[in-house]
């Protein structure tokens, strides 16, 4: 992959950083990608580091043998990208090898202004991080968030499955921008079409959302010295993901520290904290990207149902959810991922204590179903043990026979 970068100032005062990306090994046609912002970017040289950070993981995914970029790159970043790539391969050995990085070596001195920035989405995690920062960092401290970076173009778009003509969120939700400004963090909206480089949304989430966000922060070299990502997975529920406490820091350079914060705090703790300490912000929280009728939060996706249920469990009357408290049917229909089963389980007594027994029963049904599946998959219980020993001793013949009798397919396609 060859990356040629440029910086421009638009007629309306917008800053543009562009890159022409030429794939060398996959036969994909060249493509131009950009970042833009009405807030001026920093030094033009920073484009090389930004686009290297942005393109490195997609290049690796698509088995490019090298990434050559036309500007200077801090050795801290070069080393960090190699380490991040090695971590991905450790998680998924079938991933292609990391591409070699070809770039001029730069000495990037630390940013003189030393501002700290937060990647802000208005979700529970970034609201919590902003509030915690206000509690722990005095206004004159270098870690006090002075900038709130909103990156548009990396989120999901389109309609809800039921055909509701939903819109994705605007470039920076005005209410949330006001909230940031009120907290002393200057809202900075950034747009990008980076997804065009590797339009697989699932892959963005799984491999490179952290590096794509870090890339945007690199463009503000000279202004932003550290950029913090709010952790979406707490430590007890960690899984390999595109933004991760052990990986994100490797996307920094000597000029920019990239931090992944609050991985030690569960989502429920964050909600309870916000309900007590910052209820006005929690009422404006945006947890999903759909805006039915122009209002944030669809009220139907997993995140909305989960957040609505947790808010009901702590007795917080949210205003953000058009559908209000989730319906028991919505909860009962959820498919809960194994790391989150105990979290849902912890909500059940709280819902009961508030007299929300229908919600509690629905949550109980979902939890029980997920536990059964988990137990089977882990080879526990008599069915799970049977499956495990069938695989060990008979190479899964028993499962295949049973599936054939029932007219089903097994997970391995048998």
């Amino acid at each position: 992959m060859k990356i040629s970068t440029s910086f421009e100032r638009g007629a309306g005062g917008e800053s543009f950083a562009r890159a022409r990306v030429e794939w060398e090994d996959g036969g994909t046609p060249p493509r131009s990608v950009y970042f833009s912002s009405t807030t001026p970017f920093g030094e033009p040289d920073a484009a090389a580091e930004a686009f290297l950070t942005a393109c490195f993981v997609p290049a690796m995914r698509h088995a490019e043998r090298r990434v050559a970029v036309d500007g200077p790159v801090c050795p801290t970043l070069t080393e960090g990208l190699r380490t991040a790539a090695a971590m991905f391969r450790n998680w998924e050995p079938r991933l292609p090898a990391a591409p070699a990085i070809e770039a001029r070596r730069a000495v990037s001195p630390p940013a003189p202004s030393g501002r700290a920035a937060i990647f802000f989405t208005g979700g529970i995690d970034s609201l919590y991080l902003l509030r915690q920062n206000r509690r722990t960092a005095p206004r004159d401290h270098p870690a006090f968030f002075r900038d709130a970076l909103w990156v548009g173009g990396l989120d999901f778009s389109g309609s809800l499955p039921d055909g509701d003509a939903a819109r994705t969120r605007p470039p920076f939700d005005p209410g949330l921008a006001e909230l940031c400004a009120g907290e002393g963090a200057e809202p900075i909206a950034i747009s990008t079409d980076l997804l065009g480089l590797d339009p697989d949304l699932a892959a963005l989430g799984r491999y490179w959302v952290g590096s794509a966000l870090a890339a945007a922060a690199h463009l503000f070299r000279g202004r932003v010295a550290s950029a913090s990502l709010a952790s979406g997975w707490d430590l007890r529920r960690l899984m390999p993901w595109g933004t991760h406490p052990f990986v994100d820091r490797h996307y920094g350079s000597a000029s920019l520290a990239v931090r992944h914060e609050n991985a030690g705090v569960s989502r429920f703790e964050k909600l309870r904290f916000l309900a007590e300490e910052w209820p006005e912000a929690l009422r404006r929280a945006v947890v999903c990207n759909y805006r039915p009728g122009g209002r944030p939060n669809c009220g139907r996706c997993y995140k909305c149902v989960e957040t609505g249920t947790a808010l009901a469990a702590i007795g917080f009357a949210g205003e953000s959810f058009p559908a209000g408290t989730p319906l028991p049917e919505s909860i009962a229909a959820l498919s809960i991922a194994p790391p989150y089963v105990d979290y849902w389980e912890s909500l059940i007594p709280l819902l009961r204590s508030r007299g929300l027994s229908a919600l509690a029963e629905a949550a109980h049904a979902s939890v029980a179903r997920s536990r059964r599946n988990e137990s089977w998959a882990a080879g526990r219980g008599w069915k799970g043990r049977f499956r495990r020993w069938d695989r060990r001793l008979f190479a899964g013949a028993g499962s295949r026979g049973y599936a054939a009798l029932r007219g089903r397919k097994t997970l391995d396609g048998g």
Partner: protein
Amino acid sequence: MRLTHLQTELRDGVVRRSARFDWEERPRDPVTLSFSLPSSAELEIADDGNAFLAAGVLVAMHHGERRLSIDAEICPRLAEGAAMAVEIVRAWHGRVKNPVAIETPRGFRLSIPRNPGSSALLFSGGVHAFDALLENREFFPSGHPRRFTALIAVEGLDPAGAALSPVRLARLRAAAGSAGIPVATISANFRELESDLGFVSRQFFGAALAATAHALSPSFDGASIAAAWDVSHGVRCGSHAFVDPAFSSGALALRHEGLNATRLEKVSRIAARSWTLENLIVCTDAAAAEGRNHANCGRCERCLRTRVELEALGVSAEGSFPEGAIDAGELEALHLAFNHDYFWEPLVAPLEARGRGDLAAAVARLIAEARRIQAWFDERGWKGRLRGMDRDVLGGFLGRVLRRSA
């Protein structure tokens, strides 16, 4: 666990920062942990509680303490990271231990780097530390904030908790002199705080190094710990890419470096320079080494492994070790620790290529033995499967009977 009486004193040319550790859940005697630095060193000792928080939190977890209360201001970023470190170690080693609540009556204060753009390497003189130093000199030009400006040698963490021998000190100084940067020796009585060697090596080692770096945090804003395992084989051990950086504060970034190279690649880079090879300290048996008036005993697993690695690379071990060329018979009594076959496996082919079939066969035997035990443990092979079935179906009855009859 309560940490009180934090104080700094200057006596007999040594600056000593100490804190008293009192246990709340176990009837253990209080311990005073101290960091001691010669006053002549051009480094400063921190006056906050961060070093003691880093030193205490995993030890508190290990001994079932429910909280760590420290009578000093601490950095909230470190407190969060320390809690994360506890969670990581608990996730790895089973949830038999409880989380530790971190409390301070003095409050949390986000610390600020006092000397920004300055990095140090925690330096043992071993293969990984030397390689981290070499790589740093090569990749980070002069003036870069990541280029090491000092080496820190830590006394008190080896199995005996002993001071560095004169021979080892001389090697460290010679290495620092060749690299053109100063080395400071800081002593800490970690082994009085924690005597369980297994816990120290598997869970606590990185935290102890991080604590030492925090004790010197006014002098740097970054400190690096050299990785023993490359990223493709991230064994869960006391110093780890996930754990060490968790001990960062607002003032000090902890880094775990050298993840992208295997041990043999590192030995190869070290072997290419005489000043690194001559000053290598790999030995884990400091007493035996001192008994031979050498920096390395030449006979412990680490020494034997390094000697075999040098042999595989066609480099003489003379100077680095009391003995020169290695004999296959020296490996006869050796048994590899869990996972260590990973270090030995890449040596077989180059040894054969160099005409050392005897040594290659000895190494292959060590690897095969280690893997046989591992397969049984992982319930592979017929013995392992039998063990698994016994546990699943009979609740381990058969195993208990066999052990009793043996």
